């Protein structure tokens, strides 16, 4: 009886193995049609079996900049600008290879910026100099409106707001009575064909912008 049970168990194990691997291969390989069927029917499967292994594909052709523009509510004509991503990157490079904190900070901030941009722009054309009849700010505001109700977007934005408080605390700036505007820009890497062109200007393009929002002292500051 026991022998029969173990024989059956072996066959079941092989069957599950074959089914599992068929699912993993189909849901991982870049063939959208069948992959979508599996991930639609069993969304949890992807979480367990892994993720898309992209390994720098495609490579980014730009670097992001994240600006916090802080001003006093009572004196809005004067503002301070703090850029954070370049600073995190510099610290990360300085402390190689013992840069756990800087690496974590880089991931925490960058992933929220990237995810927020992905939500806002999706497949839409990002702002640039070649969009006629609109300014960058109005074009961005129009795209952001569609995402205001999305919880992922709101969480990413709230994280950046919280991070702003951390940065201001580090700089010993009092956040009472202050409001902040968040701006994300893209700074292009000099294109491959222009690699020797010293005249090429790496002009930053704003791709995300919020209105001024008051900073509250109630949330996390770690």
């Amino acid at each position, binding site marked *: 009886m026991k022998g029969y049970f173990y*024989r059956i168990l072996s066959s079941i194990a092989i069957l599950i193995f074959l089914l599992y691997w068929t699912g993993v291969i189909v849901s991982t390989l870049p063939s959208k049609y069948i992959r979508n069927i599996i991930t639609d029917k069993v969304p949890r499967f992807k979480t367990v079996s*892994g993720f898309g292994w992209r*390994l720098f*594909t*495609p490579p980014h052709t730009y670097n992001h900049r994240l600006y916090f523009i802080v001003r006093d509510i009572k004196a809005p004509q004067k503002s301070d600008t703090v850029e954070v991503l370049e600073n995190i990157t510099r610290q990360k490079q300085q402390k*190689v290879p013992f840069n756990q904190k800087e690496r974590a900070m880089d991931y925490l901030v960058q992933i929220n910026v990237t995810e927020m941009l992905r939500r806002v722009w999706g497949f839409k054309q990002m702002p640039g100099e070649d969009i006629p009849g609109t300014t960058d700010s109005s074009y961005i505001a129009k795209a952001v409106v569609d995402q205001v109700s999305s919880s992922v977007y709101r969480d990413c934005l709230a994280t950046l707001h*919280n991070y702003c*408080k951390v940065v201001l605390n580090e700089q010993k700036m009092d956040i009472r009575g202050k409001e902040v505007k968040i701006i994300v820009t893209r700074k292009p*890497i000099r294109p*491959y064909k222009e690699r020797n062109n010293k005249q090429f200007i790496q002009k930053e393009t704003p791709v995300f912008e919020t209105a001024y929002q008051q900073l509250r002292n109630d949330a996390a500051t770690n």
Partner: protein
Amino acid sequence: MKLLTNSYGTMLQLIKHYKVWLEKDNYKVLYLAFLRVAISVWLLQELIFNLPILELLYSSSSFVIPQKNFLNWLPWGYSLIRTHYMWFIVCYMGVIILNIFGIGRWVTGLLLFVMTHILQKMNLTVLDGGDVMARLILLYLIFADSYQYFVLFKQKKINNARQKVSNLLSNLAAFSIMLHLCLAYFTSGLLKINDPYWWKGEAIYYTLQMERFIGTPLNKYIIQHPWIELIINYAVLAFELIFPVLVWIKKCRKPLLIMGILFHIGIFIFLMIYGFQVVFVLIYGLFLPNNKLVRLKEKAGNYIRF
């Protein structure tokens, strides 16, 4: 119809043949044990290195708003873990240590997988491919008998029928880990040949200039020499497509594993991505034959035997 019946019959015979072969022996018995210990030590090391920032990563007072996931379904669980995250970390460390010594066997393995999954879900933003691969290894190791070496207490003899199932599960687990490595490379290789930057040989130029991944001043030196970029670009492309196919052939294995180690050392140094490289290279040992590893272990002496 007859053709269909014939091919169905052939497939069944093939499965039967492999079933007998898989039940015969645990072909990766030593390395599975080593992998259990190595992955556990790596998890412990990551945790210890991250001790000063655990509050930032997991506590409820962190500035990060956690993304919604299955933990939010628990009416009390998520906030409880985040509020008392240090207790969770202490328990997690305990389970890792139990797993290193093989105490609790697959039950500890299962617990470690679940706890790793929860910890990763508590902060998805800091995960890279290495964390995902480590979680998958832990999942497969639950089914494997990785307790013949490096354990505090030796296992009692089990009956023949049970041993056969144990061998089969261990071999399928080892095979799954190896397959997952190959799948990761191959998927990435396929995406790369469809990507214009990789196809035209420009990808390394851009990758080395992504500010958050500039690991050394040498990155800037390399991008001044297009021929170096081109060689690396196409070597990466070729490696990712060739490795999953040819690593199964004995003659090609050694050069491919050496190439792979160089590839990962390159990413480690130039792009500052650390854990990912360690986990991927750890899997390489599964491609080595067990008898060679046993001989190596014997040469290394008795001090590594528990």
